[in-house]
């Protein structure tokens, strides 16, 4: 399987939904474009999983003659690992959207007939945007040069802006989308500046060529471009203080898109940072470890504290996403610090990165699950206020139980895999007891995990066990529709399955890490 095929499948499906839209409207089945998206995601997922199981070797395809300026794609275990997560969550969101987006249509503040509202909402373009969003993300992980990476990056970014502002009759969404656009564009420009500098240094944008110049021996220009790339990708990864767009943007989007944005889009930023910092620049040469650790600690602490008192459930989950990015960034920072300060302890650095990458998966599952469950509440109660959702558990037992699994996974309650990813990072942090910095970081990390566990459980307690605030307000609430429950139950099962199959998953991650650490 070639990397191009996956891109082609997804782009082809996006084009197909747009071209076939008149047909779907004629047969009065708007759901069909959702089905196309599902099929596209499922086939990519299957192809990728088959590739992963077969343990296929890394491949590179170059478009055109082999010159410094031609673009190319790569496919290695790391891109496969992340692409599986991306397309898997994309599949869940697509299945979920089929039913959920009808709800968005119904709540459009217009008196027009259904099909006019569909056009007005832009549901015919929705799946195309979802497909291009995931294409962009997968493309980023498969890029083999900074040019390709940047193109896919922008494809992803533009799709996300449009999807955040999708509910365009609502001021909240438009404002959030605009803020996201401005902030993310600033970030992209910073990254572009860094990439331009690299081109000046290396005369090529191919990763191997750039690496040959900056890895091992660097100069101030290279370090500056590294900083710009960190800022640029850090905005999408929502690292504090570049995160301020996220708490507005993620809640404003339609819920399945929130799940994608919070679950995986920010991980694309993490991947771009991981790749450029560890693979291209090299932590041994550039001392970015402490800076990364500082950013991670700041990110998790800020977001965890801010999350506690949120009253809007989607905003609450958005803050928790920032905090989880903090854990991942801290894991990466620890690895960078170890690789620079203790070059012999490669195993320990690998442990921290394994934890970080496992947490990428855990957070994608847990946060996707949480957002999708939240969407069910919104569908039934039409409110995002936690106060109004209190005590909804008994009315929607399957949704709430699944959400419970997701929250426990996010809270890192053993034996769920969320616990193991945090444990791996913590045990890497405790690996060199004489290092005061690492010890302090680990303690702050643990305190953050405890705080986070506290508010996740608090949220679950309020949703599942509290008496409803409004007398009889939740009386007529019933369980979510089956089509929306399916992805939720699959994700809940996946949380448990990953826990059971932790060893193979860890082996997969180790082989993905070999791409980075060699």
């Amino acid at each position, binding site marked *: 399987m070639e990397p191009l095929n996956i891109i082609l499948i997804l782009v082809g499906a996006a084009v197909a939904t747009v071209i076939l839209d008149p047909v779907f409207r004629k047969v009065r089945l708007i759901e069909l474009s959702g089905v196309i998206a599902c099929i596209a995601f499922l086939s990519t997922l299957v192809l990728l999983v088959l590739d992963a199981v077969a343990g296929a070797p890394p491949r590179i395809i170059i478009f055109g003659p082999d010159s410094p300026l031609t673009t190319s794609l790569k496919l290695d275990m790391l891109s496969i690992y992340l692409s599986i997560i991306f397309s898997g969550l994309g599949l869940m969101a697509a299945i979920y959207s089929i039913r959920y987006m009808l709800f968005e249509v119904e709540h459009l503040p217009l008196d027009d007939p259904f099909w006019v509202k569909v056009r007005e909402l832009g549901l015919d373009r929705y799946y195309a945007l979802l497909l291009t969003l995931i294409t962009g993300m997968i493309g980023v992980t498969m890029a083999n040069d900074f040019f390709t990476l940047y193109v896919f990056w922008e494809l992803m970014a533009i799709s996300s802006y449009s999807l955040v502002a999708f509910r365009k009759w609502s001021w909240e969404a438009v404002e959030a989308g605009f*803020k996201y656009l401005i*902030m993310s564009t600033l970030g992209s420009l910073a990254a572009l500046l860094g990439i331009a500098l690299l081109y000046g240094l290396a005369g090529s944008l191919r990763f191997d060529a750039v690496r040959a110049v900056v890895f091992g021996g660097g100069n101030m220009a290279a370090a*500056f471009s590294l*900083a710009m790339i*960190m*800022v640029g990708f850090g905005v999408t990864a929502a690292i504090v203080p570049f995160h301020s767009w996220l708490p507005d943007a993620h809640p404003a989007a339609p819920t399945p898109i929130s799940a994608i944005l919070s679950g995986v889009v920010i991980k694309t930023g993490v991947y771009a940072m991981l790749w450029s910092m560890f693979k291209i620049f090299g932590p041994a*040469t550039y001392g*970015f470890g402490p800076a990364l650790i*500082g950013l991670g600690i700041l990110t998790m602490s800020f977001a965890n504290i*801010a999350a506690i008192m949120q009253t809007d459930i989607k905003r609450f989950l958005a803050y928790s996403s920032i905090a989880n990015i903090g854990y991942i960034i801290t894991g990466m920072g620890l690895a960078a610090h170890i690789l620079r300060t203790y070059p012999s302890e490669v195993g320990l650095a690998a442990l921290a990165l394994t934890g970080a990458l496992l947490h990428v998966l855990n957070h994608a599952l847990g946060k996707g699950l949480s957002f999708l469950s939240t969407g069910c509440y919104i569908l039934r109660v039409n409110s995002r206020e936690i106060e109004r959702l209190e005590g909804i558990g008994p009315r929607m037992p399957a949704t709430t139980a699944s959400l419970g699994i997701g929250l426990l996974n996010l809270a890192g309650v053993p034996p769920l895999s969320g616990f193991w990813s945090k444990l791996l990072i913590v045990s890497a942090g405790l690996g060199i007891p004489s290092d005061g910095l690492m010890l302090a970081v680990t303690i702050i990390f643990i305190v953050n995990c405890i705080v986070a566990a506290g508010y996740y459980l608090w949220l679950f307690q309020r949703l599942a066990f509290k008496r409803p605030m409004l007398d009889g307000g939740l009386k007529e609430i019933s369980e979510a529709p089956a089509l929306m429950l399916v992805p939720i139950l699959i994700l809940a099962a996946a949380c448990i399955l990953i826990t059971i199959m932790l060893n193979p998953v860890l082996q997969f991650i180790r082989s993905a890490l070999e791409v980075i650490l060699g």
Partner: protein
Amino acid sequence: MSIEPWVFYAWACWIIPVIGALLTPLLAKLGERMRDFSAVIFSLLAMLMTLSLLPLLFGDVEWPLRSQVSWVLLPGAPILSEIRAGMLLDPLSIIMANVVSVISFLIMVYSLGYMRGDPGLTRYWFFMNFFIANMLLLVLADNLILMLIGWEGVGLCSYALIGYWYRDSKEGWLHYWVGEPPEAYPPSHCGMKAFIVTRFGDLFMIAGALVLAATAKTIGFPELLHADTIVPAEMRWLLPAALIMILGGAVGKSAQLPLMEWLPDAMAGPSSVSALIHAATMVKAGVYLVARLFPIALSWSASVPAATSFFYAVMWIGALTAFIAASQAVVSTELKKVLAYSTVSQIGYMMMALGAAGLSAEIITGYVASIFHLMNHAVFKAALFLAAGSIIHAAGSRFLRDMGGLRKHMPVTFYSTLLATLALIGLPPFGGFWSKDLVLSTTLSSGQYAIFILGLSTAILTAFYSIRMVGLAFYGGEKSKKVHEAPRIMWVPYLILAALSLIIGLVAPLLESGLEAALSRILPAYMHSAYEASSMELLVPLTSVTAIAVGAVPAYALYVRGMVDLGEIVEKHGYMRALRTLLIRRYYINTFYYRAIAYPSIKLGHAINKVFESRVIEGINNAISIGARRLSDIVRRAHTGLLNHYVIGLILGALILIILILAGGA
């Protein structure tokens, strides 16, 4: 690689009942009959799986057979860096698994009738199947940690099923409670008691397992056999210490002294549960564990002489328990409690045999004696408990004083009980006779005469309380009217078991040599010693039959024929009254535990709650939660919602980052 059939049977026989247990709540949705019958069918399947293992015993097999999967991997961990989960098949585990599964199946069938119409049946079937699964896992586990999982699993099921009638209704006092004031306990209390007391023993067991993992670097039974050779000499003393600690778990689970107090009270559960868990299977887990450790201890005793202390401990605990429990059975006023004391006492017998075997030249005889007695006891005691369930149901009371004259109305139950009782007494040619005979001759051949005397006295007491029980229940004046025989689905299982106890006796010599041939193959080769006919051959059966006569004849006269009223005699003599009170109050061991441990712990808990919990902890909690809310509110304000602020934040952050990276150096 092709998988041999035994691998499938070994894993399936405990996985099937787990599935059965998990399916029970779902099947309950399809209808009650569906749920009940499928629960029984899952236990039948488990039985078929274990039966399929039996042919291995007759084949030419290199024991032990082992099938392992990687289970827990903790690379770099100082101990237990890799734990494999494995099934261990050898004659011991195969025999034990079959005893468990066959009796389980019969009791499940009995439950169809006995528990019929009970409102909590989904819970009942769930825990019964879950119990069978855990018991088979315990038996087949190839290492201590996996065994502990089954071990705790059966403990959990035991807890849940003792407290099955958890509502503790006062109206059900005659049925569901246990004991008489001041030691009368409701079912939920008894379940808790069983759980806590056995857990106390388990603590030692876990500690022992960890000591072994730390010193011998292994917890697998086959590897432990030669663990003494890899442990440095100065640390070898830890090995017998670990064995004694693990023995703590066996003592708790098998209700031996000093942790025997939970079992008599466990009779608050349904009779089927008492039969399955508290007579035939779970309480034997301790014996099984000792039998598992037996070759290990024996093998270690060559290089670590202290390892023989394990056998002394097992032997003395067993012998004392056997005698003390039997003496309490003599005065018990409840039918099932007589049986419970008797169970404790008989398990003491098995322990005693194992201990003595380790100290004797005829190792294999003692080992076979214990396992044979375990089998016999499982069969006849299960029959007695199942019959007791019918009797209590018919009489409407668990007290012996409310029974009497049931013989004519319940003929099948009577004859089943009689057969099983005779086996319990050890009358020739019942199975009990042969195994008891072997146990006693082992104590003699090991030269432990004190133990022999204790065993013989226990035999006298056993004969006495057994006949007394039958007399009180089936003879004498009728206490209640409208008594009728139990339904067929109930009496068929216990009739089969009772008949089995006789059949085993009839083929006992054959069975004995078979067991000996099979079990001798798991003991290290050098332990085999020629079985020499000694001059004591005839002495033991003669003395044991005499002991039966000494115990049974007075009991027959007193309780079956009713020639003298023993109550009056006891009332006349002060010392006899005192003795009776001492026995009824269980030598005050139970009282001691409540006064010295249970009540003070509860008081301490209340005190801690009052002072520490509600003031200190509560205060800290409130401070944390209020502080976190305040802090969160402050931090939240950083999000003004104004894009200008956000962009300034971004640029400032970028500047700081650039400085940091440049300072980090290239």
